[in-house]
Structures are given as structure tokens and as C-alpha cells.
């Protein structure tokens, strides 16, 4: 017995050199560096995922997840039968779709136009100017918008009035809510959105243009047969990434633009969760709404990634 123990003891150094524990010990400093970051992800990202269980409970903050009573799918059933569900779904999809069919192509077109500019200095100047709004907060963007569009002395309405038309209440009407939202998105981020496209465009082999030109291709044919195919994969990747945020687009922006008069067209899942959850204290119900949104978002990303791969594109994940 003793002898065997001695033998294993002796065999250890050679045997354990490559065991997991040994390899981990070697990089112990790296784990030490990563520890705060890992703790951050576990506490602020993964613990809330566990906390999502409250969507299936009658959650009471003072007793916590362990003490609260389980109610199964009650909150989900309630949510799907509320008339508000359809309103939220419609508003969210509507704004997200506008973003996809107006903002997204707009950035591509803007990048293509910038790419056609021959003067390097002019191009640089335009870029410098159109990037500025990206760094302003949503509060500032919406604030400027209020100052310009208000009926109480805003420039836009002053101009409209001086031309002899009736003032338009842009900020407090259902009709103008969506155009204002999409206009702000374009104003703030369209310039910034061109960066990646411009980088992709700069990488297109000039010989391709040369060859096409020799074959007699005009500007449109060059665009269609050389430029667009060259940046197709970038477009697809950015599209997938945008799909991931499809449902939580511009939450701060929408929250700031909402008021009692445009709520009917402006309320989206996130603003509803905030209002019903944190302001009215229906924690479990609003957590269920949030979970529904997160799951749909996840399905959208994975789905669009899968479709992109099916069409022979690289995908993101």
C-alpha cells in the first residue's frame, strides 16, 4: 500500500505537467485580470437572466425570487389578451420597419454618393460635418427638435406661419410622430452609418472599374455590377446586426418624444415596460413583457443570420 502511494507520488510531476489544473495555475494572473470583468458579466448580465423567472411569479420584492408565489404563464396570457399588446406590436414593428426601409438604405446611398466625390478635401469636410450629430445625446437631439418645431416660437413654425399657413403641432400629434422619429434618426446617425460602407468601398479593386469601363459600362452599370456586389457582404452583416436591435431601437429617443397626445402611435415595448413596471410597480407582468421582447429579438437575429448563411453569405455568428 505504502509502496503504491509512493509510486503514484513519484509519477505525479511528469503526469500532471499538462493537467488542466496545472495549465490554469500557469495563467493564474490572467484569471486574476479577468476576474472583475467576469464578475461584472455574472452579476449584471447573467443574474438578471435568472431574475427573469419573476415573469412566472407573483413577484414581491421584499420576499424575493425564492419566496414569491409561482403563477405559470398568467402574465403572458394577460399580456396577449390586452388590447395594448396589438398596439405595442404595431408601433414597434412600424418604427423598426421604417428604420429598415428608410434609414438603412439612406446610409448606403449616402456612402455611395460620398464615394463618387473626387475632391478628397471636400469629401473629408462633408464627413467631418455629418459625423457631428452622432455624438450628441438623445436628450440634446430631441431637445433641439423641440426648440425648432414647437408651436410656441419655434423657427419651423414661425416660417410656416410667415408663409401664411397654419402652424403644425409636430410634437404633439399622432400624425407627425413617426416622421419626426425617423427624421431624427437620419439626422443623428446617417452620416456616422456611412463609415463602414466607405471603408468597404475603399477596398474595391480599381482594376475592376477599369476593366468594366473598357467594356463600355456607364456609371449605373459600374454601380450595379461592381460596387454593390463588392459591398454586399458588409451590407448583409450590418443588416443582421441591426435586426438584433430590431425591437429595442432608439428606446431613449422614443421615450423622450412620447407624450400623452402621441402615446397611441408612440408607445413601444420598452417604454411600456418602464411605465407599467417601474412606475406602476407591476414587476412580474412587465418582466414578462420584457422577456417576450428579448425572446423575439433573439429569434430575429438567429433567423436572419441563418437566412444570410443559406444565401451563401458569411453571417455574423
Amino acid at each position, binding site marked *: 500500500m505504502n509502496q503504491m502511494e509512493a509510486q503514484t507520488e513519484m509519477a505525479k510531476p511528469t503526469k500532471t505537467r499538462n493537467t488542466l489544473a496545472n495549465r490554469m495555475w500557469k495563467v493564474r494572473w490572467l484569471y486574476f485580470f479577468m476576474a472583475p470583468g467576469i464578475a461584472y458579466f455574472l452579476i449584471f448580465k*447573467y443574474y438578471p437572466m435568472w431574475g427573469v423567472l419573476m415573469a412566472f411569479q407573483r413577484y414581491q420584492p421584499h420576499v424575493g425570487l425564492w419566496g414569491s408565489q409561482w403563477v405559470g404563464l398568467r402574465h403572458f396570457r394577460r399580456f396577449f389578451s390586452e388590447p395594448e399588446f396589438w398596439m405595442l406590436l404595431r408601433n414597434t414593428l412600424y418604427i423598426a420597419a421604417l428604420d429598415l426601409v428608410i434609414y438603412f438604405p439612406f446610409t448606403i446611398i449616402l456612402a455611395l454618393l460620398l464615394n463618387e*466625390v473626387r475632391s478628397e478635401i471636400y469629401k473629408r469636410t462633408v464627413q467631418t460635418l455629418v459625423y457631428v450629430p452622432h455624438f450628441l445625446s438623445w*436628450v440634446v437631439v430631441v431637445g433641439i427638435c423641440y*426648440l425648432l418645431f414647437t408651436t410656441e416660437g419655434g423657427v419651423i413654425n414661425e416660417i410656416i406661419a410667415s408663409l401664411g399657413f397654419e402652424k403644425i403641432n409636430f410634437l404633439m400629434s399622432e400624425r407627425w410622430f413617426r416622421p419626426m422619429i425617423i427624421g431624427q434618426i437620419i439626422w443623428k446617425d*446617417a452620416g456616422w452609418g456611412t463609415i463602414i460602407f466607405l471603408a468597404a468601398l475603399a477596398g474595391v479593386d480599381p482594376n475592376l472599374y477599369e476593366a468594366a469601363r473598357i467594356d463600355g459600362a456607364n456609371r449605373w452599370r459600374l454601380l450595379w455590377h461592381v460596387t454593390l456586389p463588392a459591398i454586399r457582404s458588409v451590407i448583409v452583416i450590418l443588416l443582421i446586426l441591426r435586426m438584433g436591435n430590431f425591437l429595442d431601437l432608439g*428606446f431613449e429617443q422614443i421615450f423622450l418624444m412620447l407624450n400623452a397626445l402621441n402615446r397611441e402611435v408612440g408607445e413601444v415595448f420598452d417604454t411600456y415596460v418602464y411605465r407599467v413596471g417601474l*412606475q406602476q410597480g407591476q414587476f412580474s407582468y412587465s418582466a414578462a413583457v420584457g422577456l417576450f421582447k428579448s425572446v423575439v429579438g433573439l429569434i430575429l437575429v438567429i433567423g436572419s443570420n441563418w437566412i444570410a448563411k443559406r444565401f451563401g453569405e458569411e453571417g455574423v455568428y
Partner: protein
Amino acid sequence: MFDAANIIFLSLFALAAVLPFIYVISSSFSVTAGLIPKKFTLEAYQYIFSAKTFYRSLLVSVYVTSVGTMIQLILTSLMAYGLSYRHVPGRSMLLLMVVFTMLFSGGMIPTYFVVRSTGLLNTLWSLMIPNAISAFNLIILKNFFQSIPDELKESAKIDGAHELVVLFRIVMPLSLPALAAFGLFYAVGLWNQYFNAIMYITDQTKYPVQVVLRQVIILAYGNIGDSTDMEEVPYYGQSIRMAVIVVATIPIMLVYPFLQKHFAKGVLLGSVKG
């Protein structure tokens, strides 16, 4: 023909990007805000810097931005550095853990309760810690660290340098442009954040400038009979509102020249897959 139209369109778009802001600046200095500013005055600025609420919120934002950027940058680069070594056991699991947070989240309400249970509620930490690491930035920085040749790190280690020395004497100095870019990313995010503040902070003396800005401008106009905000909103003159916007944006404008240079680089770093 096409070129001319193109130039005109781009010029108009560029003008539209900055004109509203120029208008705001000019009317913040004028007596009556009509179409054309009439008389130059500093009254609006004198007023807002004498108003304690605004002054205090600026200090809060400066504090949160400077301390928060340090914390977030350090946490992010330490973790990115660890993840940049391929031979670390459990690395792929950790990466998966990070990437998954970009796809799925527990949502606003569960996150709120986690922040509450950590005792951060109503402290300025709640504006810096709950979003300390952006998964996106982390992955990009990891890729950047990975692109630093292993030979540099290994040779230092053979010479007996400690991992800490390798990180602070070799990797960090080589990554300064990337770190500057991400530092600016974080700083702009911290300065501009609004929603975290109204979610986690109820003590009005701890409001950052964006929250005060919203009270001064947006609430003063909108929200007729809206139950969301019960605070008393005093009425401010047009030029004061404009001046508030200007002051709240000045820090961003000051760093913009650096931002523009490094940000573009940061975004492009991100487009390199790895």
C-alpha cells in the same frame, strides 16, 4: 451633371447636420430668439451658472464621466487582455458568455432589481457600474491585443518579466490608439447617458446634466397632463434653454476633433472579424 447634383446634395446634408446646432448657439447669445438673433448678450449663461441645479448636475456629469471612463476602460482592457491568449483554459466558454449577452438580456425589470440588491441604487456608481463593460468593445479590444505579436510578450516573459509588467510595459503602450478610442467611446456614452439616471437615481441632487436638460427643455413644452413626471418644472426663457443645450454639449464638441479621428478607427477595428 451628376457630379454637380451630388455635390449640392451632400453640401445640403452636411449643412443640415450642423445648422440646427449653430442656430442654438447663436440664439443662446441673443436677447430674443426669432429667426435672426438680435442683440448679443451673456444673460442666459449668467443665469444658468447661478442656478444651483444646473451647476451641480454639470459637476455630477463631469465626475461620473471621468471616474466612470477610468473604471470601464480598466475593466474592459484587463478582461480583453486575458481573453487575448488562446491557451487560457475556459477561454472559449468565457467568449461565448460575453457574446451571448449581445443576443439576449434579462431585461429592464430584472436588471433593476439586481442593481437594487447590490445597493447601488441612488448612488453615482449606478451610472458607472451596471454598464461597465460593453461586450462589443471588449471583443474588439481582445482582437486588437491578439494582433500584437506573441514574440514581444514571450521574449519579455523569458527575460523574467511578470505578467503585470508585460501588460503595462508592453501591451498597453502598443495599444494606446485603441485604448484612446475606447476611452472616448466610454466617455461619450457616460456623458450622454440619460435613461440609467432616471431609472436608478431618485435623489434630485444627484441628477446628471442630461436629466436636468430634459426637465428644462422637453418637459417645459410637452407632457400635458402626463403622469410620468411629477416634478415641478419652472418656466425658462428660450435663450436659457438654448444655452443649457450648448453647455451640456461643449465637452463633446471639445473632444470632437479627437473623437472623429479615433472613433472612425475604432469602428473599423470592429469590422475586422476574429
